[in-house]
């Protein structure tokens, strides 16, 4: 990708920490989220949800609810003809038809004048259930004879894996067997594992477990739906991809896509949890039934009980190495608990386990298992933190057992560009080595012995690090760049900004066109007006939409220069943009303003074409991005309490388009990673009912739990990224679980393999070791 721009001077564009233009609106409470919309005639929706994880619906009586004053609609599956059994996704399972398959599944919907009236109506709906046996544990659920979750013949859903576009060449298949709850299987093999284990000197075997966790976005799912008299539906949505929301809703409701307009409102956090449609279809149906605008906002309890969390991941991992540190064999079984509907990125788990380090012989089996729990979705680098927790913990233990430096051991075996991943794709250019090397140069790593020795008052101190990353997603996209009659630029995409990407895209446009950032305005358009684009997911917005914006801006620049060339009777090649003018190089007096060019493109009877730069690229080359993290901790061996003293994040971003925004991503991702490591778990009883459905009991880290997060940006340019940029969002959520587990072992000598690394687990492990 050509990135050399001919401008007279450096423009105010890429590489600068320019504050986001929406900052003032966000700090004053002016930014509008879905729940802030209050159109005339608004109705409020509430859903009646099943208290049972698995039950037959014998009878539903809504008559008393319908009779309540202020209630405008009460719907069950029987009222929605497009609903079918064997729903392949949660979005399709709008309301349960005759069986509920997780606690919290919607069975009836109400629209009423006030939220309190809708809630009262829920109490008046009489549902008779026949409770059925529950598959609550994935290891039990995958056995023959377990209570079935999906209807026989339901298709497995691999669209999430495709959306993330992360791995190719792994076939996942749906095998019909007596194990009815195994919805996908994958296998990756190379070499002769049995022989290689026989030749190994050190064999280590562990089972790693990471529970279901919630993405934890602060804004619960919300949507506002309204139909016009011609039968067009408008959805004001909190989504990571308005075109994806449109497609899913169109599919579920059997509508043409151009009859639906999705207006993406400010998204109050998504992290993968707002990719798939969830409450949009039922809200649209309620709006149609009432001919009124209907708003649905999930409560936090509903989010935790019936959102789309990350899967539980159980990894049985066995590795064999020679005494001299030669890697020999890896054998793994990865079980991804997907809840009541298929959709886990199974192939990604397999590839990560066997691709980060160079195992000559491996055999990785992957199983997606259904249980009677809410179905899962992506969570920032889906399944990467879980699999890296396993493989990096294992590498650390091997290094300790061999008595070698854990960083040197990792560096010796880390796969490099061109090495074959487990799916036989070659590793692309990446900064894995650079990131780990930079982290190991940090004084906290070099002085880890001093830190350990400085412990006092019966406490223990340790240091741990870990390396992880993300392969980088791809998806076609588009952008336009227009020159306005006053010489300013207008950038339009359909890309939802969930991570500060719009300021980065504006910086790219400014630099590619050759004007300062303050001349550029960027807009995320709705699905009626914006160019088709993909999800804001997979760490691919800057990497892919950035290219579209860059090319559209170059295109607009070329058009501008051609118009100027005619005007100035000069060759295009002799022109350059200097401030707000196009000038002849070396003849600064000879020029024409951008405003005059823009104006002529909009004058009555003008023969000058308006400047409209466009680009709509598709992509084939990913840009893997690595992140290394280091933790300095103190452990109280009596209570198991971990105090985090320092935390360092090193990340390869290719090129830092906006360093401050990137630091924010690194810090936020790191704290989510630390939450997964230390405190977070959705906890279920043996009837698959959530036992901690509040933010008091689902414990996220607060400012008081944390030190400042130190960030170090490494820039190894991505050959195909805009100005060399790589994806930034996902890598920082990956390494902390292994880094903390490694630090705990450094401090206490005990190795923990189940997350979260809670005080209880740590104290028990220390007690049983001594």
């Amino acid at each position, binding site marked *: 990708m050509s990135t050399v721009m001919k401008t007279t001077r450096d423009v105010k564009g890429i590489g600068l920490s320019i504050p986001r233009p929406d900052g003032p609106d966000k700090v004053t*409470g002016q930014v509008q989220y879905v729940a802030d919309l209050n159109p005339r005639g608004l109705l409020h929706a509430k859903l009646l949800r099943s208290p049972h994880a698995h039950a037959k619906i014998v009878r539903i009586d809504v008559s008393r609810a319908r009779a309540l004053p202020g209630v405008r609609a009460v719907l069950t599956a029987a009222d929605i003809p497009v609903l079918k059994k064997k729903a392949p996704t949660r979005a399709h399972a709008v309301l349960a038809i005759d069986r509920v398959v997780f606690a919290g599944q919607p069975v009836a919907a109400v629209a009423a004048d006030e939220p309190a009236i809708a809630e009262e109506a829920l109490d008046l709906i009489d549902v008779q259930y026949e409770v059925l046996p529950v598959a609550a544990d994935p290891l039990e659920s995958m056995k023959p004879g377990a209570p079935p979750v999906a209807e026989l013949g339901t298709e497995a859903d691999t669209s999430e894996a495709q959306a993330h576009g992360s791995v190719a060449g792994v076939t996942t298949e749906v095998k019909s067997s007596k194990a009815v709850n195994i919805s996908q299987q994958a296998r990756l093999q190379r070499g002769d594992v049995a022989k290689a284990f026989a030749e190994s000197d050190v064999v280590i075997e562990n089972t790693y477990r990471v529970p279901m966790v919630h993405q934890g976005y602060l804004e619960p799912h919300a949507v506002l739906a309204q139909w016009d008299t011609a039968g067009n539906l408008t959805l004001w949505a909190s989504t990571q991809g308005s075109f994806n929301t449109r497609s899913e809703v169109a599919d579920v409701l059997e509508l043409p896509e151009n009859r639906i307009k999705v207006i993406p409102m400010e998204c109050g956090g998504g992290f993968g949890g707002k990719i798939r449609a969830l409450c949009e279809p039922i809200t649209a149906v309620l709006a149609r039934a009432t001919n009124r605008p209907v708003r649905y906002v999930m409560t936090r309890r509903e989010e935790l009980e019936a959102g789309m969390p990350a899967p539980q991941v159980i990894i049985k991992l066995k590795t064999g190495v020679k005494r001299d540190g030669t890697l020999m064999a890896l054998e793994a079984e990865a079980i991804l608990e997907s809840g009541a509907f298929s959709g886990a990125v199974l192939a990604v788990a397999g590839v990560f386990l066997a691709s980060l380090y160079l195992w000559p012989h491996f055999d990785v089996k992957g199983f997606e298992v259904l249980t009677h729990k809410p179905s899962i979705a992506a969570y920032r680098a889906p399944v990467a933190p879980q699999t890296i927790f396993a493989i990096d913990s294992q590498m650390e233990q091997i290094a300790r057992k061999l008595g070698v430096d854990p960083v040197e051991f990792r560096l010796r075996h880390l796969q490099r560009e061109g090495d074959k991943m487990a799916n036989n794709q070659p590793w692309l250019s990446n900064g894995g080595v650079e990131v780990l090397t930079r982290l190991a140069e940090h004084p906290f790593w070099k002085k880890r012995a001093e830190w350990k020795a400085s412990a006092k008052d019966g406490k223990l101190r340790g240091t741990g690090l870990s390396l992880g990353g993300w392969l980088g997603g791809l998806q076609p996209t588009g952008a336009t760049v227009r020159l306005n009659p006053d010489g300013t630029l207008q950038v339009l995409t359909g890309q939802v900004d969930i991570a500060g990407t719009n300021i980065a895209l504006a910086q790219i446009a400014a630099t590619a066109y050759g004007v300062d950032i303050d001349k550029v305005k960027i807009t995320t358009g709705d699905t009626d007006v914006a160019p088709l684009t993909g999800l804001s997911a997979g760490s691919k917005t800057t990497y892919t939409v950035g290219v579209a914006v860059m090319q559209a801006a170059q295109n607009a620049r070329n058009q501008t220069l051609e118009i100027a060339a005619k005007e100035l009777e000069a060759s295009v090649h002799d022109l350059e943009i200097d401030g707000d003018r196009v000038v002849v190089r070396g003849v600064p007096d000879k020029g024409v303003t951008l405003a005059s060019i823009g104006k002529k493109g909009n004058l009555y009877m003008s023969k000058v074409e308006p400047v409209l730069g466009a680009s709509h690229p598709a992509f084939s080359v990913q840009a893997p991005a690595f992140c290394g993290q280091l933790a300095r901790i103190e452990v109280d061996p009596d209570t198991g309490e971990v105090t985090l003293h320092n935390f360092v994040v090193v990340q390869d971003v290719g090129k830092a388009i906006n360093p401050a925004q990137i*630091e924010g991503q690194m810090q936020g991702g790191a704290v989510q990673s630390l939450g997964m490591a230390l405190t977070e778990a959705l906890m279920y009883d043996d009837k698959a009912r959530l036992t901690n459905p509040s933010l008091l009991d689902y414990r996220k880290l607060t400012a008081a739990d944390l030190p400042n997060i130190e960030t170090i940006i490494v820039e190894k340019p991505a050959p195909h990224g805009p100005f060399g940029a790589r994806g930034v969002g996902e890598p920082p959520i990956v390494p902390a679980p292994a880094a903390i587990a490694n630090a705990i072992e450094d401090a206490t000598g005990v190795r923990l393999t189940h997350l979260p690394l809670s005080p209880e687990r740590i104290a028990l492990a220390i007690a049983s070791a001594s």
Partner: protein
Amino acid sequence: MAKQVLNFTVNDEPAEVLVQPWDTLLDALRERMGLTGPKEGCGTGDCGACTVHVDEKPVASCLLLAMQARGHSVRTIEGLGKPGALHPLQDAFVRHGVPQCGFCIPGVIMAAAALLAENPHPTEEEIRYGIAGNLCRCTGYTKMLAAITEAAGAPVGRRS
């Protein structure tokens, strides 16, 4: 039950609004008065996104019944500063690039403003505890600490 008349002061102006007996202060502000700066992130007082000041003290407005605010003075994020005339905290949050998704930000700033009103030069630990009732999922809190420290007029604190 009939609606009730709530008379109180909101952002320095006298206000009179009809509320349901079960409306929370947050409901009254958001749904009855259009002050949507305070957010509902949990409705159970655990996330802090709905933080407002009642008589200059930080309060989770989702835990207070609207009628309990009768006769009291309430300040929301809308009454702290405006675009073009930002409060020093708001200005520091923008310049430090704190807001990402932005949903927690009104609550965090109201909590920080209450802290600084009571303790103009807090230590890093006092700031951390001052906003410990406010969950943020995007930022990791580090840039918040820098912005609040700067707004407090103190030198930027420990940067590990």
